């Protein structure tokens, strides 16, 4: 029955999103005979500077509170309320912008475009969660990220994703990050923001594709904990790397691990890792070493193949850039003219292109050159990520207790109260040997 209810709920969400698309449909402008000119579209004024700094202040305060709740209070309830606040403030009030997830694009765009200066507040949004992750893990994901909070809210009955699949899919965020950065660097647009599936919720409007994707993520999120955070979020990939070397790490038990496996059951994100088996059978050891050697040798080959394949992707990838797309349409129009009778956007864009074809084509040529380079780098990046992950999967971990994977743990604090020792510490159950148990 619950499954059916979930289906209905998901269907409702999807249809809601689909219907929001209609609200964005444009109505044709009238044919004015009086000479009236339609006013040109204007860009809203930027948010006042002090308010931008206030947003950064709220972010820093929320990060501080999250760290305090994770490490000092060890409070899931506190993190839940902090999540709700973040969802309301960074999500629905600030409408998902500026947000750390998209901010690396600003940095790369600023580096590749000398005319653009990255605002200080964007720098804060980009680096503050990473710096915190270097010390305290993914505190941002735990209670400050509105996208994560939204997925947490719809999580009804989590099922475990097989670990082998979890490991394989964990490379996807890095691929998305690479794509987002090349498109930002080439000035095409911020695709990480454009394809953020939850921002349309915060803004109550969006395109059909992204709204459908958002609905799909929420549908999946009812039974799979935070699918976007785990398998797509590019900023989560950065935080995962920072958390791997964090100074402090989340510990399930305040005392010694009882190996009861209860914490493993409590984690909806598949982040709990069991102790590594002691010793290795001799028949496996040689093969493992040999495999590791081959994979290490394969790594540069994968990178080189990626660079080659990526450079072949350039003509297609560049078409996402408006200037290249316009040049494509202009060139097609020259060879196969289409007569546009109405004042359609297509006709108007070609009209503009015809005014200065040299500028359009020169810009396209320059962009195609940049895309050749960027796509080569992107391909190499894909090879590096996959090769590195293959190597990582061939190295034996060294764990003696049940503990969260430092990169995958979202520090949500759900596992704390699952640990018998923590429950004893909190006074929720008597300790072993307590007279109350006898």
């Amino acid at each position, binding site marked *: 029955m619950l499954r059916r209810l979930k289906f209905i709920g998901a269907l409702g969400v999807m249809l809601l999103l689909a219907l929001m698309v209609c609200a964005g449909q444009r109505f044709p402008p009238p044919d004015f005979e009086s000479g009236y000119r339609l006013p040109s579209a204007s860009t809203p004024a930027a948010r006042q500077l002090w308010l931008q700094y206030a947003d950064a202040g709220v972010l820093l305060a929320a990060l501080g509170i999250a760290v305090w709740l994770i490490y000092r209070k060890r409070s899931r309830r506190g993190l839940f309320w902090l999540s709700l606040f973040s969802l309301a403030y960074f999500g629905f009030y600030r409408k998902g912008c500026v947000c750390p997830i998209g901010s690396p694009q600003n940095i790369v765009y600023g580096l590749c475009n000398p005319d653009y200066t990255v605002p200080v507040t964007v720098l804060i949004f980009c680096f503050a969660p990473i710096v915190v992750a270097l010390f305290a893990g993914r505190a941002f994901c735990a209670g400050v990220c509105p996208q994560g909070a939204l997925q947490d809210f719809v999580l009804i009955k989590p099922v475990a994703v097989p670990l082998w699949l979890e490991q394989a899919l964990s490379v996807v965020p890095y691929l998305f990050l690479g794509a987002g950065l090349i498109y930002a660097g080439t000035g095409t647009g911020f695709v990480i923001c454009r394809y953020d599936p939850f921002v349309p919720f915060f803004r109550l409007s969006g395109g059909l594709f992204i709204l459908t994707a958002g609905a799909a993520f929420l549908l999946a999120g009812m039974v799979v904990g935070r699918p976007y955070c785990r398998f797509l979020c590019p900023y989560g990939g950065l935080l995962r790397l920072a958390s791997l070397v964090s100074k402090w790490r989340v510990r399930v038990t305040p005392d010694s691990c009882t190996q009861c496996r209860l914490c493993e059951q409590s984690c909806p994100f598949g982040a709990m890792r069991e102790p590594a088996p002691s010793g290795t059978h001799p028949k496996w050891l040689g093969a493992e070493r040999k495999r590791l050697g081959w994979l290490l040798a394969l790594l540069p080959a994968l990178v080189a193949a990626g660079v080659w394949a990526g450079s072949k992707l350039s003509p297609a990838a560049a078409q996402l850039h408006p200037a290249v797309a316009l040049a*494509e349409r202009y060139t097609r129009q020259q060879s196969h003219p289409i007569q546009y*009778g109405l004042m359609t956007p297509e006709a108007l864009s070609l009209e503009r292109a015809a005014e200065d074809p040299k500028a359009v*084509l020169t810009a396209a040529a320059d962009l195609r050159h940049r895309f050749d380079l960027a796509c080569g780098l992107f391909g190499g990046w894909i090879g590096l990520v996959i090769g590195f992950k293959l190597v990582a999967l061939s190295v034996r971990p060294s764990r003696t207790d049940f503990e969260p994977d430092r990169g995958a743990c979202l520090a949500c604090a759900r596992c704390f109260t699952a640990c018998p020792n923590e429950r004893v510490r909190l006074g929720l159950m008597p300790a072993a040997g307590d007279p109350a148990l006898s």
Partner: protein
Amino acid sequence: MNTSPLHRALILTAWIAGAFCLLVCGVMVYGHFEAATNDPWKSPQLLALREKLAAEPKNQPLQKEIRQLDLEFRRNFRHRLAMDKTGAWLLLGGTLALVLAAGKAAALKKTLPLPQPKPDAGEQSIKLASRARWSLAGVGLVVAGSLLIIRLGNTSVLPANQAVWQKLLGRSGAQEAPVGDAPVLSEFQANWPRFRGWDGSGAAAWDSKTMPGILWRSAIPAPGHSSPIVWGDRVFISGGTADRREVFCYNAANGALLWQRAIENVPGSPLKMSEAPEDAGCAAPTMATDGRRVYAIFANGDLGALNFDGSVVWTKYLGPIKNPYGYAASLAVWGNHLLIQLDQGETRAEGSKLISLQGASGRVLWERSRPVPASWATPIVIEAAGQTQIITLADPWVIAYTLADGNELWRAQLLENEVVPSPVFAGGFVLVLSPGSKLMALRPDGTGDVTKTGVAWATEENVPDIASPVGNGELVFTVTSGGMATCFGANDGKKIWETNLDTEVQASPGLLGGRLFILGEYGALVTLQAGRELHEMGRTQLPDKFDASPAFANGHVFLRGVTNLYCLGPAVVKLAKQP
């Protein structure tokens, strides 16, 4: 199984919330698809009415019906937007209730974990790692396959290498048009490529020894005040109404109408032109040609370039043009520049500008704002003071711009009233008319404001208000609307002679060697000797009404009457057969 009343209530709540969501969704989906199938852009009803209106443009009830239908569409659109907004909030509430109830119900039914020990953890760990590696390889293949599909699905027409890029950029019209593409100056001089000849002076390079007779005449299918232009064996005129604007091409030898082409479907141009003022009509501006293409502009702002075979090269909408009597300034060509003086506004400048387009592509080479209201004079291009200058007239400024980049060279505040006569360049002076009040000669070698320093001479005698002057370097001739022809000295502006032609004149006079050629509004064709002595060399009567100025090319004179296009030649021959 937990069957507590609370659990049952939660399940029931979740079901109700789910059913509510489905119901709201159903209504909204129905509204969505209904709206999608009734797109106002493509409404057959509206399109049919519009087509009907095109056939009956003055049908007031039809116009009202269209407006009513349009209003209804807009009301429906707004209503649907409001419905969607309400529905979205209802769905949000329903989904919230559904998630909360289902989540709570799931929590109540939660079974406590009972983990079991894993005796074969070591082997499982190895298998898990192996499976993860293979699945990672699978992810890699999926990514590679997806990228391959993207690559194959997005073919590019842009070049793949730098050499082809350079070729494409060279062909895109970036540089000046290739020298081989532009006719030489002698070709321009031998033809009549724009209003009042290649340089706008109204003077032809050849002389007419005898009073010409009618060689042929040919009916003009559409009204217009534009003057004919001539290139080789082709004569071009424009014409049209608020519904249809066309270009007509005639055979210069026999008057056969070779083709006519409508300038239509211009991107951005309203489907229906607002009523053009009766004075100027829709086709008052004279066309221009650079010998490779012909260009036509109409009062609504539609501009088009056509090949000599009548095929459309490009079109552009420059309107709406705010002009109280209708836009009438003619096009000018010089090299690869097509010049458009687009002055607008009744009493003050309202978007007035001078535009230079590249003839081959229609792209804007440059554009300059002008501080003047509407005017009707046509710009000329002159070579003077080491510069190629564009001379423009409008109340109150004479302004000269450089041809290359449109930068202003000099200006003089000399004009008033509604400026119709165009400037001419003769004897080293730019001759300008302040309509009905002053004829002035300006030295085109100044910079900045030359109001006080640039005027060589000025006269207030017999100053025309419509017809432009004409000069031969030694003498300047003018004709007023009332038919008063006057000769001035080109160096000092002193009147030499004057004569009343006893005819009203709209057309500007032309100079054929030693003959001054004056065409009266009601068909009187008068030739005067273009000298210091007043001498009427001939007078004849043509059977038409004439507002357009004559064109002189290849030994023939081309006149546009209200009903016919005429070709006059040195000998009277049989009229060409009507096409």
